[in-house]
């Protein structure tokens, strides 16, 4: 395709029509249903989406209207996005695990007139908040189970809406040309989608992304990584998150590759193995989870296997990354690594569903260098990118061969970056947002007068031109002594240990650094089982003296590593607490994308923070928890506060 022809395709629906004509028989989407992969070709999807769009139009959806999309990654929900975009309506994906209250806020703020949702659970949520969302008229659903006896005046199965559209389409050729005209009439300046931020620092905001910008950004990065129609991705990340919309939906539409929807969130790993995904994305948390599971299973394995595993992981640590980066490596090391590939790495990658992965990305949060290296040393081409919803994801990304754990790479194609005087990262990108919905003052705050977007993160260019992110600009602080305090940096070091699920560091304006820790129930529970440690709940296990000892060991190692970095040595951890409750997004302690809300946590657990700094060895805390069904309860506990060993600064050795 010539460049001009491609440039004319400036909206996603135009690309859909394009694929239907140039690669009609290639698979566009697969969904595992009843244990079998069902596939749809581009031609089939194009027809379905046209029918769906006509059906939506019949229900009253017009250009500019908003339609909420709520649920897991299912073809019918992706079609809902496509159909809405065909009509010029604006899809607004919402996090499916959001509680009714959060959902009501977003739906009302976006003034949606319709919602396409997955199942009864979501329908119930919407019905419960309907009086707070006066604009909402129709609710469409995919999974009919349990909904038979509901009042269907304003409730429709998505299948029925598509059928309705099919009947309309059959009425005559002018129907087909009408919908085709709607698609070709789409302009680059139209709003393609509205994504709500996860709200690390407060209420979520509706980020407006334009069609032309979105398409251009996706084309740039698809070319950057050489994505093509034969690639396979597994879509398992929240629809409402920019990562899924960009990497799966956007990339699929500009390259024509196939999106595979897993059967259920629990089967995603198994399904990824079956489809052999070639392009893969996961936030660091997912990689942490995988490493934890591998380590637990190796602990349970026989002595021979365990020895073999640790031996070859050692080999990979020494040579794996060098081989992947194409550096020169002695032949004996290559042979040794090759044997490891046969015995350990290959099977391991197979279990994780990474056998075919050509390019993998991680982003969302800084990844621990050890964690990052572990996966790369196995031969997985894992890279980092840095981005945000406002940029329509990519701000920087690492090109093949220039991968380092401590940077997020140079600016992405066509992205311009500069660092403000106070160290904040600013950028201009093809996909950047046009504004926050209904919040011009916030938009103005975020944009600089010369058209750059403020990221709120502080970072710098290093010698090789790569960007290094230190932390969120407002999080990077100083200890009372004036030494640098970067909480996330410390937290990520702790989270590398499988036993640590979450960490929250404090120290801004204080004499020393202290942390809250959440233990990982899978890892620590497994340890407890093997060591006959009896416990009845998370709370009991968390407060166990032996668990404190294990965590103290990890904290000590982190301190030792911090002592080796002159800039960070003063930020060693002095005291810590293992929290009696798991941090949870339902309680507002984490965002829906599972990032910690540090200041909220500090407020909520104020007595514990005080205890960390008062020198007390125990503290009482009583806090509210929200159960999955929305009921609330209280947890009261006495937790111990432990001291950690700190280390003298190690003089910098020649680097």
């Amino acid at each position, binding site marked *: 395709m010539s460049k001009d022809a491609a440039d004319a395709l400036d909206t996603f629906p135009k690309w859909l029509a394009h694929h239907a004509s140039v690669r009609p028989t290639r698979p566009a989407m697969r969904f595992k249903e*009843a*244990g079998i992969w069902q596939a749809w070709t581009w031609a089939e999807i194009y027809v379905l989406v046209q029918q769906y769009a006509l059906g939506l139009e019949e229900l009253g959806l017009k250009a500019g209207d908003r339609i909420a999309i709520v649920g897991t990654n299912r073809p019918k929900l992706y079609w809902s996005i496509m159909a809405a975009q065909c009509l010029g309506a604006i899809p607004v994906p919402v996090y499916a695990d959001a509680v009714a209250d959060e959902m009501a806020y977003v739906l009302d703020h976006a003034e949606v007139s319709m919602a396409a949702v997955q199942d009864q659970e979501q329908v119930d949520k919407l019905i419960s908040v309907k009086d707070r969302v006066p604009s909402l008229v129709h609710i469409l659903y995919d999974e009919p*189970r*349990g909904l*038979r006896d509901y009042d269907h005046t304003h409730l429709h199965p998505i299948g029925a809406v598509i059928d309705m559209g099919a009947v309309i389409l059959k009425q005559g050729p002018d129907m087909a040309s009408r919908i085709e005209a709607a698609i070709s009439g789409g302009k680059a300046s139209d709003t393609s989608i509205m994504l709500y931020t996860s709200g690390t620092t407060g209420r979520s905001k509706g980020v407006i992304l334009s069609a032309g910008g979105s398409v251009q950004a996706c084309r740039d990065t698809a070319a950057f990584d050489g994505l093509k129609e034969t690639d396979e991705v597994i879509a398992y990340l929240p629809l409402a998150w920019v990562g899924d919309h960009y990497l799966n939906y956007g990339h699929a539409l500009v390259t024509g590759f196939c999106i595979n929807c897993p059967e*259920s969130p*629990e*089967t995603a790993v*198994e399904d990824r193995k079956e489809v052999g995904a070639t392009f893969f994305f996961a936030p660091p948390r997912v990689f942490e989870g995988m490493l934890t599971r591998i380590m637990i299973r190796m602990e349970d394995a026989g002595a021979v296997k365990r020895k073999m595993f640790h031996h070859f992981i050692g080999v990979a640590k020494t040579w794996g990354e060098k081989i992947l980066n194409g550096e020169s490596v002695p032949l004996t090391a290559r042979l040794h690594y090759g044997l490891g590939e046969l015995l350990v790495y290959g099977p391991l990658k197979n279990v994780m569903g990474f056998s075919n992965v050509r390019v993998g990305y991680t982003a969302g949060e800084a990844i621990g260098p050890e964690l990052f290296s572990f996966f790369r040393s196995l031969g997985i081409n894992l890279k980092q990118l840095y981005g945000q919803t406002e940029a329509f994801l990519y701000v920087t990304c690492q090109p093949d061969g220039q991968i380092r754990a401590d940077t997020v790479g140079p600016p992405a194609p066509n992205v311009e970056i500069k660092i403000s005087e106070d160290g904040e990262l600013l950028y201009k990108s093809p996909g950047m947002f046009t504004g926050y919905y209904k919040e011009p003052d916030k938009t103005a705050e975020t944009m600089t007068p010369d058209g750059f977007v403020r990221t709120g993160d502080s970072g710098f260019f290093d010698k090789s031109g790569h960007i290094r992110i230190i932390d969120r600009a407002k999080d990077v602080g100083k200890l009372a002594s004036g030494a640098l305090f970067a909480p996330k940096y410390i937290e990520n070091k702790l989270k590398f240990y499988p036993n640590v699920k979450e960490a929250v560091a404090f120290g801004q304006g204080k004499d020393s650094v202290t942390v809250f820790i959440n233990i990982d129930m899978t890892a620590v529970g497994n340890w407890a089982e093997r060591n006959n440690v009896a416990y009845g709940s998370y709370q009991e296990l968390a407060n166990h003296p032996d668990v404190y000892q294990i965590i103290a060991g990890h904290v000590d190692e982190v301190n030792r590593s911090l002592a080796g970095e002159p800039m960070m040595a003063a930020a060693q951890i002095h005291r810590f607490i293992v929290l009696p409750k798991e941090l949870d997004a339902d309680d507002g302690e984490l965002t829906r994308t599972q990032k910690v809300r540090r200041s909220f946590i500090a407020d909520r657990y104020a007595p514990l923070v005080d205890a960390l700094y008062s020198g007390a060895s125990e503290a009482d805390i009583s806090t509210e928890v929200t159960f999955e069904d929305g009921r609330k309860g209280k947890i009261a506990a006495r937790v111990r506060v432990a001291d950690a060993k700190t280390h003298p600064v190690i003089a910098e050795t020649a680097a």
Partner: protein
Amino acid sequence: MSGAGLGKGDELLKVENVSLRFGGVKAITDVSFDIRKGEIRAIIGPNGAGKTSMLNCINGFYHPQEGAITYKGIKRGRMRPYVAASQGIARTFQNVALFKGMTTLDNIMVGRTLKMSSPFFWQLWRHGPAMREEVEHRRFVEEIIDFLEIEHIRKVPVGKLPYGLQKRVELGRALAMQPELLLLDEPMAGMNLEEKEDMCRFILDVSSQYGTTIALIEHDIGVVMDLSDRVVVLEYGRKIADGTPDVVKADQKVIDAYLGVGH
């Protein structure tokens, strides 16, 4: 799955004056009640009240010395459990009775055995009609897997699963028989609160989606009262109450049986 000519609310099974003895021990004495099509019927009572014995009588495992059991209007003679099964009665057990070494999928497929009719010759080769039949059965089993939300353990040997999930698989196997009458022996025993809530939801869904008649034994009174349409209460092998949950809850004899009474 509909009964022969029976509508919702018609009498599906009638127990009349049934008595069961093991030697000199009276397990059940002169108990009568009925189960109507489409309802959720609970049998409750303190330990040793004869609940499981009653269930065993219904599915033909025990043979009461006195009284009669009428199923779909036909009085039953002595019979084996598999006859009951082929007549559309399925059950689960108090202690999970699955094939531990087999996968979830295979365990549920076992529930389809009675529905398989292709000739032995073809089954032996797993070809022709046998294969076509297996595909049909697999489709049905997959529907159950979807219904019970156990896709992620489809290929996991059930021995490795936590107890709550095993109970769910067992329910799946019983459902695979497309039973007209489903007997559940303490479906929620040993479960935590969340698992219990899930199980309640599945039982209600089975009732509303498949229209299956369900008789269940349960210890957890709270669960029973929320779940069932009618409750029969046994104590020392005798029936002491029968009616809707509200009626039963208010019955003095039931309160005495559960809370004890000063003699």
